[in-house]
């Protein structure tokens, strides 16, 4: 497992993703992208879906990308990566290229959970060797904070407003990581910008896998979530401590937990600093909703523990 020194040494490699982007102050996405690309040693081709990352990193006359970079549309990062990877395989087979090249697709939660799910599913099923990274900030932040399939229960967004009749998003977020696991691909993981060691570890595992791999990275959005820019890392960290966003990986069907908090914090600790959940606390505390959210988190956590236990028993 890499330590701070190892991580720091990654930073000495040639930068693949750099500044000169116009992402907001305190945005979590560039932290995730640099961590992912830094952890890969081989040459990389990057495919990006439409989103903040795409529009803000390639503003004329600058680019933040120091690698071959391709953006096509919102719904098809995985499909485009399939094409690029296939072309590479053809060239290798013909002996026209000998370098080991890796392919990484970046997309947001909108481009992965919703509109891009079909392309992702197809690419995973076909077994292309590429890493798909979902930078999950839990809503369509590029178009102004509309709800997505990743938006958590009771969060306020511009299309899930809070009012007398509504408390924000009334549906639960879908568990995309689990959907991806169902494709039985070699490596699936959930990571966070709150834990780099873990993220870097997972990227290295994923990139050395011969087949498709998927990492779902939680990266907070200060504007959309409604917290100060300096809280970006702390908020995602709290998601780990409250077990809202557990870190786990599924290698060839074996589930394993990567982080178990010493003391599980109540979900309220994660919700309270975010303005998108402010209606749960003001004008008066909505205890029933809070209890419901806590129940959801508990149930998901229990289920995850069971899965990991079963995997541990099976491998003995």
């Amino acid at each position: 497992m890499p330590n701070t020194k190892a991580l720091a040494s990654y930073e000495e490699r040639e930068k693949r993703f750099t500044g000169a982007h116009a992402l907001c102050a305190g945005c979590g996405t560039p932290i995730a992208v640099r961590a992912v690309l830094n952890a890969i040693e081989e040459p990389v081709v990057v495919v990006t879906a439409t989103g903040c990352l795409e529009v803000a990193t390639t503003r004329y006359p600058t680019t933040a990308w120091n690698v071959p970079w391709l953006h096509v549309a919102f719904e098809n990062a995985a499909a485009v990566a399939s094409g690029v990877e296939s072309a590479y395989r053809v060239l290798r087979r013909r002996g026209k290229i000998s370098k080991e090249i890796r392919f990484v697709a970046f997309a947001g939660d909108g481009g992965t959970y919703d509109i891009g799910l079909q392309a992702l599913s197809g690419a995973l099923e076909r077994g292309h060797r590429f890493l798909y990274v979902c930078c999950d900030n839990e809503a369509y932040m590029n178009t102004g904070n509309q709800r997505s399939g990743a938006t958590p229960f009771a969060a306020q967004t511009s299309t899930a407003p809070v009012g007398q009749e509504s408390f924000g998003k009334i549906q639960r977020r879908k568990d995309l990581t689990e959907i991806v696991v169902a494709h039985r691909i070699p490596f699936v993981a959930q990571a966070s910008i709150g834990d780099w060691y873990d993220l870097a570890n997972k990227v290295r595992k994923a990139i050395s896998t011969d087949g498709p791999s998927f990492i779902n990275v939680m990266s907070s959005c200060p504007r959309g979530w409604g917290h100060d820019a300096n809280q970006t890392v702390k908020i995602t960290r709290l998601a780990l401590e409250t077990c809202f966003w557990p870190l786990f990986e599924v290698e060839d069907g074996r589930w394993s937990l990567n982080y178990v908090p010493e003391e599980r914090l109540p979900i309220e600790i994660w919700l309270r600093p975010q303005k998108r959940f402010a209606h749960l606390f003001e004008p008066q505390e909505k205890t029933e909703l809070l209890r419901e959210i806590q129940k959801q988190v508990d149930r998901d956590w229990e289920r995850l523990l069971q899965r990991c236990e079963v995997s541990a028993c099976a491998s003995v």
Partner: protein
Amino acid sequence: MSKQEFVQGNEACARGALYAGCRFFAGYPITPSSEIMEYLAREMPKVGGVCVQLEDEIASISAVIGAAWGGVKAMTATSGPGFSLMQENIGYAAITETPCVIVDCQRWGPSTGQPTKAAQGDVMQARWGTHGDHPVIVLTASWVREVFEMTVHAFNLAEQYRVPVILLLDEVLAHLRENVTLPAAGELEIVERTEDTEEKMLNFGEGARLMVTGMAHDETGFPAQGEKAAQHLKRIVGKIEERAERLMRYQGFYLDDADYLIISYGITSRAVEAAVERLRAGGIPIGWLDLKILWPFPEKLIREISSQMKYILVPELNLGQLVREVERAAAGQAPIAHLGRVDGSLITPEEICKHVHVGALSGQTRGSAPTS
């Protein structure tokens, strides 16, 4: 409702939809149309309607078609890339004669293009985007109040003739705020889906065994081939084409004594208005035709008018779309010039004046006119 307000184009569209009786909205976030969904997400539940955000534009229009058959007036709103995704289902709505409204806030394209810049590049896609011959009505608007009125009109036409109606707005108009007085309740006519609509429609659960299919079918709803399929297609295309003249909606200015003519639509009409006043003040006999309905194209009208003109200018925010229709309709009776602008900015009155001065007075026509 009838008080002066400061209203955004997108908001006017959303309010127009509620005014017209729209009770189902399905959409997907896309700049510059997102505000329509955001407004309806707040307001739709208050009138007992449903506003849902779906996983993409294909799902949005599909849900709208489903809701239309379920018995409510339904709408979706999008922009260029989403509009492209919707095309298959717009064709489906046409062949199944499903009344629905699709708002397209045009932005610079193709692909992601310039999401925050205006364009009028979807004129042909709105008419011919889906495959095969099909009926469709395409409306446009230039002012915020007009966005409201045309949204209501779009629902009326959809219900009256059982056809998908597309409302072409653009980024600037969608985000523009104007001081307006929106129509009061009862001020505008609303067409409801009753026995009296010209193309009658049954909803699910109203007694008949309904079968709705995208396959070529006859009037019983069963799949048909050969001559029966041809008859069906001719009827659904014909129901709009035959009514083209009745559907015609435009405003003509100074047409009585005009030697030169400007034909415009959408956001560009605002610049034309200023240009026409300036040119008239300068003693140039200019006329102006402001089109509110683009498809069916007012062919007869343009053919008649162009016979009296020495020069026609078509300014639009594309490299030449509606101007082709104008050329076809004018059939060589007048030289036609095109002023296209595709840098994301709007055409200015100065540009139009310059073109009229240069073109009209020296007989310059399309092809030689500079485009920026």
